[in-house]
């Protein structure tokens, strides 16, 4: 890494921005962990806490937004500094969405504290573990300016998509078996989708980190593993 700026307060401003993005990312990571824990353990109290905590993520986003505006107006950043400021702004909006999805997961887990028709919580937790590790690694990649690590995170999203495809099919099967499963299974489906979306946002962040370090967005197209959008339904007994 290069030396500090001649104007020290500029270094401080960029340092603070970096710290806030990392703090926001760390918060998202723990929000996801807690939301899934609340689901698995049927812990309504923990779920409520996750829902309340989302505000802290929103506040950080606003703070980062203000800092970016200020730096752009006062410092006119160039080159690596410009890329950092742009990356921070884009990362924070992805992280904010990720926080919302974690909070929504917690909210839906409240509807599931009683009934447990299906044994899919473990699969969802496994998916969340992968996503959580991706978030952790992408934040490390950001802190260490490690493009290779960021690109590796991006590749792991395929694994998330695969688990999600499995969960999606299993949920459909449960719902076809018994109409009483429809409500809880729909919640679980949304939860799985939320986590899958968090994974997608994480790959966005990974691309930004790679851009920050290399000055170019990774070119090769990532393999998309989520095939549920084209899934027409299982060939059940009533199917033609």
């Amino acid at each position: 890494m290069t030396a500090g700026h001649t104007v020290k307060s500029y270094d401080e401003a960029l340092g603070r921005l970096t710290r806030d993005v990392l703090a926001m990312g760390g918060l998202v990571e723990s929000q996801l962990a807690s939301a899934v824990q609340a689901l698995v353990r049927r812990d309504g109290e923990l779920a409520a806490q996750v829902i309340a905590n989302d505000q802290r993520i929103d506040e950080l986003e606003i703070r980062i937004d203000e800092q970016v505006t200020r730096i752009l107006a006062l410092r006119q950043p160039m080159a690596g500094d410009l890329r950092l400021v742009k990356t921070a702004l884009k990362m924070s909006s992805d992280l904010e969405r990720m926080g919302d999805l974690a909070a929504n997961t917690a909210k839906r887990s409240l509807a599931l504290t009683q009934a447990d028709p299906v044994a899919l919580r473990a699969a969802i937790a496994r998916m969340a573990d992968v996503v959580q590790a991706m978030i952790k690694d992408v934040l490390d990649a950001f802190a260490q300016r490690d493009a290779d690590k960021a690109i590796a995170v991006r590749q792991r999203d395929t694994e998330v998509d695969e688990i999600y495809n499995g969960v999606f099919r299993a949920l459909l099967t449960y719902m076809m078996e018994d109409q009483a499963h429809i409500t809880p299974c729909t919640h679980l489906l949304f939860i799985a989708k939320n986590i899958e979306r968090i994974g997608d946002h994480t790959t966005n962040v990974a691309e930004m980190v790679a851009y920050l370090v290399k000055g170019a967005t990774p070119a090769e197209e990532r393999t998309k593993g989520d095939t549920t959008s084209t899934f027409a339904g299982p060939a059940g007994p009533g199917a033609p």
Partner: protein
Amino acid sequence: MVAITVPVAAPTAAGGVVKVAARGVDVFYGAKQALVAVDLDIAEHQVTALIGPSGCGKSTFLRCLNRMNDTIEGCRVTGSITLDGQDLYARTIDVVQVRSRVGMVFQKPNPFPKSVYDNVAYGPRIHGLARDRAELDAIVETSLKLASLWSEVKDRLGEPGTSLSGGQQQRLCIARAIAVSPEVILMDEPCSALDPIATAHIEELIDELKTNFTIAIVTHNMQQAARVSQYTAFFHLGRLVEFGDTAAVFTNPRETMTQDYITGRFG
């Protein structure tokens, strides 16, 4: 001291024409070497910005392009600089002709203590470019129009050039430079003595002028270099450290030293 990597043969516009080519240019002021082995191409009808900290050699390089360094006692230039393939330092070349083909605009506006009209008419007169008064009038009007000054001075052509505002004076100097129909215009920090509005006028003008001329500009203002130029050359300690597409240099420079300079980490 930090090692400086010198880029191999400078690239130019994709498919663009090289107007001025410098190869292995060394400049000495007495025993002191001010430029070391500079290879740089200036693309035709483009703006090339020369940036770098004070004393890096960017103005020295600019002055080599119209042999202004000849006027400095003890200055020695080696290597080759060609304009349309013609060696500017050949024995047979007429220096006055070089300077009419490669014009220059300086840091501070320096109009002659003459009328607005005579400032612009000066060059065409001494070079005998106009056969009669009507032709001279036409050259003055065209030059002032190209310099975006005509509408502001057309009713006061007889007033002294020094009575204009600073920004207008600089545009008058640009009109004076282009009145002899140069091919290349060199600008040495043309906006450093101007306010932001006057600066914006000059920047807009530079953009328009590149249709007819090839421009090389030295500036200390990074944002200005980024705004007005298509190519940027970064000099440090007499060497060309990096040359490339302006957008690339300011968003993703190849050299750490360029990055450090343009982001305000030294210089």
